[in-house]
């Protein structure tokens, strides 16, 4: 199909649509109401649920904080609670930033650039999260064991550390690799868009 043929088909379509005007005022105004909420894509649903779980865990740990009776358990507790509050907040913020693009005043090009940049920013947050997860893995175990079992793992259960850490490292490496590849695909398309717009500008 050549461009001329495309143009003919398109104007035929436009003519047909011209004769199909059946939208009512009520229906149009119905569409303008916020009842129809343009929600959140797949990313924020996963992350939203994750954030709720993290916040619940943080509250639980804070309520049991007095059980952490040594300086290293307290330090681990502070890190764990801080991490499970701050990281979800950062992730939700970067998702929200993607949704705050100005669709009304931006041009098409501005929208593409803004979206691509925010997507990259989102991936950066995810990447930081992946690295920090490894630290959390080591730091949270003593806290959890102390809070829920009452044992200081460094004194009574050192063998648990040797079994748990290698197992969790393998799990985390595989999980992070899967998650990162998924997000990587998303961000690669963002980079392509930016490059495409850049190439276009150079041709002028």
């Amino acid at each position, binding site marked *: 199909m050549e461009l001329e043929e495309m143009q003919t088909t398109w104007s035929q379509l436009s003519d047909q649509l011209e004769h199909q005007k059946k939208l009512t005022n009520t229906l149009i105004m119905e569409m303008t109401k916020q009842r129809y909420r343009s929600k959140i894509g797949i990313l924020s649903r996963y992350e939203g649920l994750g954030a709720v779980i993290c916040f619940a865990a943080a509250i639980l740990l804070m309520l049991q904080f007095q059980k952490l009776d040594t300086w290293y358990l307290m330090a681990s507790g502070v890190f764990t609670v801080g991490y499970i509050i701050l990281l979800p907040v950062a992730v939700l913020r970067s998702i929200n930033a993607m949704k705050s693009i100005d669709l009304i005043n931006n041009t098409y090009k501005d929208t593409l650039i803004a979206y691509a940049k925010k997507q990259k920013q989102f991936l950066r947050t995810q990447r930081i999260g992946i690295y920090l997860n490894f630290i959390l893995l080591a730091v949270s175990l003593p806290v959890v064991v102390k809070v829920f079992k009452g044992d200081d793992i460094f004194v009574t259960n050192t063998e648990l550390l040797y079994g748990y850490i290698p197992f969790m490292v393998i799990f985390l490496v595989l999980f992070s690799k899967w998650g990162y590849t998924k997000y990587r695909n998303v961000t690669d398309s963002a980079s392509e868009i930016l490059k495409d717009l850049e190439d276009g500008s150079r*041709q002028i």
Partner: protein
Amino acid sequence: MKEEQAFTKLIKQNGGIIYKITRLYTDDTESQKDLYQEIVYQLWKGFKTFRGEAKITTWMYRIALNTALLHLKRKKRSGYKVSLDAVVLKQEDYDPLFEERLKILYSKIKDLGDVDRGIIFLFLEGKKYKEIAKITGLSTNNVGTRMARIKERLRTQINKN
């Protein structure tokens, strides 16, 4: 009330534009309905502050394309939907030959990248390079270069077939 009347008039007059954009930026009827409502919603949001600096259709194309673009990126959606089945999203009067041509046309356009998809749509809508540039934010020269590239691409595809 006056504002609502002006807005519904605008949508009634230009519903076809929204329909065509939704068809180009979605792959199934559910998404198409979803996008249609989202575009009307965004237009209403912008309508309250529209001061007439640009032509109303230029303004409308811009918001509709921006909304479609982000919809395409976010894909999966859900939520309350106004039923549009009986109205604007009704299939074009069925003519198998025309349907086939339309299918090819849509697939050719969907094969293009995000930027070129917007440009070819505006070109098919009969917009001049200058107006396409105004809507997209690209320079007029860049629009010209991209259009030449699109034409070349279409020609190559024909030769291959």
